């Protein structure tokens, strides 16, 4: 469970998050929307301690994030807005192995995780390919595999569909559906709610660093336009 209480985050004088309260239960799927600059990226970066709160607290599975970073980062994995910058190795297999290696797992366990995570995004058997030869959709899926290899309870994806063509988009969505079915909780940050709301338990919309809406997709639909979010169609 991810729990956010009274979270405030400032960049210099800019108040990016202005008192956020939010809970994400295990196994839940939440879509996070909101205008540009409303604080989505800033918020999710608190879930695994990439940012530190100026005020308020964030806890994962009952432990304050700031007190046990390793626990927070194994429980919450993140796929960033520009997945390209997130790949740290030159080949597919080495990249997925990076997280598990840092956890000090045994070589067998690492190999198993690499294999399983790549299979989960339909990239199995491509361990030795160079990451700079992959297409946009493949890079996105590889980034997801790298996050999955941490075997997280919660997977956070920051605009995972940008630049993807329809087949790739559907392939990423299909992966997300499977993950959700297997009990991973998902937080999907996106401006494009098409197909995503059918997956979601809740839609949370930020505006000016606050939670402006937190409801089921059906109930939320009407109020989205006034918050600068386009309803799915």
């Amino acid at each position: 469970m991810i729990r956010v209480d009274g979270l405030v985050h400032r960049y210099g004088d800019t108040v990016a998050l202005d008192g956020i309260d939010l809970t994400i239960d295990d196994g839940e799927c939440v879509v996070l929307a909101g205008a540009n600059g409303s604080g989505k990226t800033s918020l999710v970066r608190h879930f695994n301690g990439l940012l530190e709160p100026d005020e308020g607290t964030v806890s994962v599975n009952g432990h304050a994030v700031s007190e046990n970073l390793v626990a927070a980062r194994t429980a919450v994995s993140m796929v960033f807005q520009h997945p390209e910058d997130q790949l740290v190795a030159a080949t597919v297999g080495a990249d997925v192995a990076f997280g598990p290696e840092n956890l000090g797992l045994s070589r067998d366990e690492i190999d198993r995780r690499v294999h399983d995570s790549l299979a989960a995004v339909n990239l199995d058997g491509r361990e030795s390919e160079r990451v700079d030869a992959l297409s946009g959709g493949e890079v996105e899926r590889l980034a997801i595999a790298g996050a999955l290899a941490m075997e997280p309870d919660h997977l956070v994806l920051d605009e995972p569909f940008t630049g993807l063509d329809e087949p790739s988009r559907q392939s990423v969505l299909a992966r997300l559906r499977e993950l959700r079915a297997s009990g991973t909780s998902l937080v999907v940050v996106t401006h494009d709610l098409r197909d995503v709301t059918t997956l979601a338990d809740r839609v949370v919309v930020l505006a000016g660093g606050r939670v402006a809406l937190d409801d089921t997709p059906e109930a939320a639909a009407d109020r989205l336009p006034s918050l600068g979010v386009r309803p799915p169609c």
Partner: protein
Amino acid sequence: MATDHESVELVGDELVGNVARAALFAALMGASAYVSFPNPLSPIPVTLQVLVVFLAGIFLGPVWGGASMVLYLVAGALGAPVFAGGSAGFGALVGPTAGYLWSYPIAAAVVGLIVHGGLELGSHRVSTVRLVGAMVAGTAVIYTLGVVGFAYVQNVGLGVAFWTAAAAFIPAEAFKIAAAVGIVRSDAIAAE
């Protein structure tokens, strides 16, 4: 979950940031070596490497500027195509331009030391005289080691080595110093 990974010792945030910057500067160095023009007065090409050595010292400071150049050399020795003209391999570290290559970490550290006035990363907004002085000192280090290396590896006299490995590059280096001053003086990079 928490008990699973108790032995994991995370690398501190600040250090992670420094490693990432050092690696990116090393990559920038590699990209700048690729920009290589023949020098009519010397078999050694003109490259933008020296400019990046300066920038590493100025923007990363003596410790991490030097470290980024070490990463550059090791990556090149192990096969990254980062030496002049996109070449790679341990051979370059004992080849005719070896002196220059070994001098880069020292030169970046010297530039950083003079600009920041110590090992700590301070502000790079210092007087132009100090900035230029730092880069001239860095150039002196690069040329000294470059000339000695060329003379030793190629078995030629120091005089010949001086003309081909140092004097022939002075105009190019003056241009790079001016470019570095321009970059620092513009507000191109946010003050740290």
